[in-house]
């Protein structure tokens, strides 16, 4: 019986999709994976400038903080 319940859930989960006209809240900036792109870019810049040997993401810097 448990197998039927699990299959039932698997089958019905896709039926609970968000319709195209219901995506207003999902479209809000605060719902983005990166809600503050400007702030994150600034922090990345400071991080890569101060810790040039670390990271592995964003732009690299030589430590002068000028790029």
């Amino acid at each position: 019986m448990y197998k039927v319940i699990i299959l039932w859930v698997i089958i019905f989960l896709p039926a609970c999709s968000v319709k195209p006209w219901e995506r207003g809240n999902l479209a809000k900036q605060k719902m983005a994976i990166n809600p503050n792109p400007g702030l994150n870019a600034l922090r990345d810049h400071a991080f890569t400038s101060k810790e040039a040997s670390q990271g592995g993401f964003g732009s690299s810097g030589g430590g002068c903080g000028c790029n």
Partner: protein
Amino acid sequence: MRGGELKILIACIFLVASFIVSAEMVGQKVPFCPAKINASEQNIDFEKYRGKVILIDFWATWCPPCKQSMPFLNALRNELVSQGFEIIAINVDDDREGALAFLKAYPVDYLLGFDSSGVCPSTFDVKAMPSSYFIDKQGRVRDIHLGYRENDQRYIRNKITELLAEKRP
């Protein structure tokens, strides 16, 4: 798995499939939906536009391509209105006031409807935002255009011109 459980499972699959497979709109008469005209409580009556080519456009303020399409649609409407073309744009925002504030800043000349309940897009089986439904002079859905990019302008214009050229029986 026993035979009874298998039957239940098969019944479930068919039930779900019936939800997924939606009715094809093209060729059908434009359905009624309870979109309110502008800020009033009056419903839009599509029958009133019989004999005209109409484009029913579903849009929202949170949808950038919808907003991008509006200046083009407004210009197209104003260019072809004398030939019997009209646009009815149905806003599906939850917040009607927000949509009205947007329209105050970026006004359009075509008819606006509001449906925050989701009944209209559900009735029209909207698959994407924006969605444009081309309605011919007999009041039938002739084509559906999903999304909007600048490259789509020619297609939309050609489709409208084609429908306007058709003679009413």
